[in-house]
Structures are given as structure tokens and as C-alpha cells.
């Protein structure tokens, strides 16, 4: 039973990997692909260190406690909002696609602009999400302009 489950997981992650590795090649020029892929790879490490315990390895979150990062309007949507959430945390009990989550997300002020871009690119391109990457240049100007 345990073996079957692990095998299932391995297969799921293999197919997931194959997909995420394949897609950009078809769409974007080669130079951009490697940049996005590198950002995803770096972002994964940031995610594992700072986000995974709450949002879980599969991005599915914890029912009633921490929201899923899979396909939600927020994760796929406005990049400025996402940058702000990672920098300032989120403790407002906002409704996320019809559900409420009771945990507090802390601010991550220690992350560099590049790390914020990487982790957001990772979540927007993993767990079945297919949103555009977040570039470092999209993180920095947000601060230059102040809060929006």
C-alpha cells in the first residue's frame, strides 16, 4: 500500500515535471526559457524554506487554516498584490475563493527582491498553475512607488 502510494506520487511528480519542463520551450524564445526555469528552480528552494509548512508541498494548503495556492484568483492574478502579501504578510481573514483561513501569514521582509520574484514565479508556475512569471524588475518598482 505504502509502495503503491509512493509510486503514485513519483509518477504524478514525474509527469508534473515533464509538463512544466516542456511547456515554456514551445512558447518562448530560448534565452527567456532558461531565465524563467532558473527562477522557478530558485523559487522552489525559497518556497521549501519559508512557505511549505503552511501551504504544503503540493500547494494545497491546510483546510480551514492556510489557503491553497492552486488555481486561486489571487495567485493567478495581480502581481503587485502578491508582492505585497509576501512582503507584508496577510492577517486580514480575507475570503479566498469562497473560503476563510484562520492562520496568520507573517511578513517576509528578509527576502530579497530576486527571492520574492522567484518564489512568486514558482507558485504561479507550479501545482498546475500556468500564470506569467514575476520578474525582479516587477518587484522593485513596487517599492520605488511606495504602497499601492
Amino acid at each position: 500500500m505504502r509502495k503503491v502510494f509512493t509510486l503514485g506520487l513519483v509518477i504524478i511528480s514525474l509527469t508534473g515535471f515533464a509538463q512544466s519542463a516542456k511547456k515554456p520551450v514551445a512558447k518562448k524564445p530560448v534565452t527567456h526559457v532558461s531565465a524563467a526555469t532558473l527562477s522557478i528552480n530558485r523559487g522552489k528552494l525559497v518556497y521549501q524554506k519559508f512557505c511549505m509548512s503552511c501551504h504544503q508541498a503540493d500547494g494545497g494548503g491546510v483546510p480551514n487554516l492556510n489557503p491553497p495556492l492552486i488555481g486561486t484568483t489571487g495567485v493567478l492574478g495581480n502581481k503587485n498584490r502578491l508582492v505585497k502579501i509576501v512582503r507584508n504578510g496577510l492577517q486580514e481573514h480575507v475570503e479566498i475563493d469562497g473560503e476563510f483561513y484562520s492562520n496568520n501569514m507573517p511578513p517576509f521582509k528578509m527576502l530579497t527582491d530576486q527571492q520574492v520574484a522567484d518564489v512568486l514565479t514558482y507558485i504561479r508556475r507550479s501545482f498546475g498553475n500556468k500564470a506569467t512569471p514575476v520578474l525582479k524588475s516587477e518587484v522593485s518598482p513596487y517599492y520605488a512607488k511606495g504602497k499601492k
Partner: protein
Amino acid sequence: MKIKSILKACACLLFWSSLGLNTTGQSQNAGLKLPPGFSAKTILDSSGKTRHLVVLPGGLIYVKMARPWKGNGIMILKEDNAGKASIAGGFGDYGGTGIYVKNGYLYASSNEAVFRYKLNEKNEVLTPDQPERIITGLKMGRQHETKSIVLDNDNNIYVNIGSPSNSCQLQDRQPGSLGVPGCPLLDSAGGIWQFRVDKADQSYSQGIRYATGLRNVVGLDWNQQNNTLFVTQHGRDQLNDLFPAFYTAQQNAELPAECLYMIKKGDDAGFPFAYYDQLQKKYMQAPEYGGDGKKEAGKKYLEPVVAFPGHMAPNGLLFYTGTQFPEKYRNGAFVAFHGSWNRTPQKQEGYYVVFVPFANGKPSGNWEVFADGFSGQAEVMTPRQAKHRPCGLAQGPDGALYVTDDVKGTIYKIEYKK
């Protein structure tokens, strides 16, 4: 390539068939693994987020819903002689967890208040729209907001008021953030408060902080053998996430213990200054308050009665006083573990009901898993995979054990036949 896809198909088939066996609900013992001689069935397959419950003579069952379901925060079930329950209405427009019955009254809590309802001789609620509000204005954080309740034999009610944060950090759950000096929130949360059962609108000034240093208690019960309160605490999260210099991911998964405590007036279980390490069998100083993973906290805090592995989330506690189950179970404790989330990247733990044998109000042996298989998975890597999560426990008039699940709102009944 071909071999790969065949393998994949086989694995999927196996995977799904193994799931199917556990999740049909028609399968033996409602998918639960039990000790020999016990059987289980579901009396209700699905409803809302069912939390704690009471089962009364005459077949009436009252279930507290985390959030009002179909407009009702308390669901009324009627169990027939064949052991199936039908929904017979509901009342109360508030969600919550706590519910208890004693001396002709039904007590139920929202996340800020406690109400009581008079019962008639058939255990029906006479005026569901006009409860007496006996306690009000309790602190409710975003986390640990539920109020579990139990009564003693002297007209007192005990209410858990959970800590609104993980470990009283200046910035909740921020890596490296230190503890608020003295943790003043302990004045109004992070403990058990005692009130009278029959006074209207009591709040902090009328109540007594009965015990402190308890981060969040969800399961609690009154032990009739030694006339004492027992509680199960949810220990703190994220030792390694918040203080990676002091703790490994492995320690993060295992520590601290989820403790069962016997509570006397004035006890202090250490939160947030210290936590209990079940491997070293010691209280350790919390990293927010000068700890470094090695510094001990001394002997000033209440010793646990049982220290379970970390993060398993004990949501229900019941001392078994029936006679249906074999001798070994009499006066022992059942604990329903809701299941962990804070063990990533390791597999999660809990999602079962355990049993602790007791004699004269003290454990008389090691704890053991009593009912397993609620999750419907061989392993739970992340809580979302669990089909059911055990939460509340109750003993029926005939000595059967009832277990709620707050994922699907399934209610299980576990029985013993010689």
C-alpha cells in the same frame, strides 16, 4: 516508453482500488481498523463540519457545527433502533465546537460565548430560540478561536480560551521574531477559565483563570473517578521554520509533545515560555524566550499525564464509563487526533482515535491506536488528502463510542460484541 505507460496504468489501478476499499463507507467497519471484537458503522454519512457531540437516552444526538449548516449551529439527530440517524432539525445561529449535557441542561458554545438550553424529560430542547447566555465576551483570535466546554459535579463550567497566536511572538509566525515580554495575552487567553453554570452573562471579571500556560485545548473531560479536569493541548508549531539555527526539520516534525494534562486550580503548563519535549521527557525553554533547543526550563511547570508525538491535534477527549466495552477500557481515556499539518516534508501523523488505559485516575499502561483508517489513505502527506478527520467523541447510553468527522460530517458509531 511502453513499459513506463503500462507501469503507470497498473499503478493507477492499484492506487484507486486500494482507495476504493477504504472510502466506500459500505466496506467493513466503515473503513476503520479496530481491535478484535469491535465493529463500526456510520450512522450519518455526510453533513456539515461536525465538531463535538452528545448522545442522549432516547436516541437524540446533538452535534455542534463549526459553522452553521443549513442555518443551524447545532444539528439534531435521531438514531433509530437499526442504528441509522436522520437529521431531525437544528437550532442556534452560531458556529463553534463545545457542547455538553448535565442535570437537564444542554450547554453549547460559540467562539465568544456559552449558552444553555433547558431539556425536557425526553431530552428535547424546549425553547431553542431562547437560550440563557451564561458566558459572554470571551477573547476570540483568528487561530484557536474555538471554546470547548465541560462541567464538574459542583455547578461549575470550564471553558478553554485558546491563545490567538502560535507562541506569543512580537510578530506571529515570523522567522526569528522573539516573544512578547511576559506574554500579557495570558490574562485573557491561553488557559482554562471556570464559571458558574447558572449565572447570566458572566465574563472575565466573574470567572476564574483556573489554569494557564495552555496554548489551545480542544479536548477536555471531567474524570469522574478522581473528580478532576483533564485536557489535551495542541502544542506549538514551526520550531524549525521559525528558529532554523536551533532545530532540524526532523525535530520540527516530532516536537513538542501533544500533552494530556490533569488540571488542578492554579496549574501552569508553560506556554509560551516552555514546551514539553517527549523524547527527553523534560520542559524546554521556548526559542522565543531564550531557548536554544537545549536549554531546560526547570521543574516549575505541570507534568503531563501522557506526552504524545507532536502536531497530531488532539481534538476530542473522553473517559469511558460504560460497560459495553471490555474491562480494560473502563475509566480509560479515548483521544481523537484530528491529524497533523506541521510535519512537512515528512508524512503527517494522527487521523486516528487512541486509547490510554487508566486506573484510579492515572494511566496504567501505554497508549495505543484504537480506531484507524479515517483518512482513507495509507499515508497522509498533506491534510487535504484525508477523507475524514476525527474530531469529537461521545459515549452513548448503551456504552457505544461515537466519533465525528469535520471533513464530510460523517458520524461513526463503534460497538463491541462478545
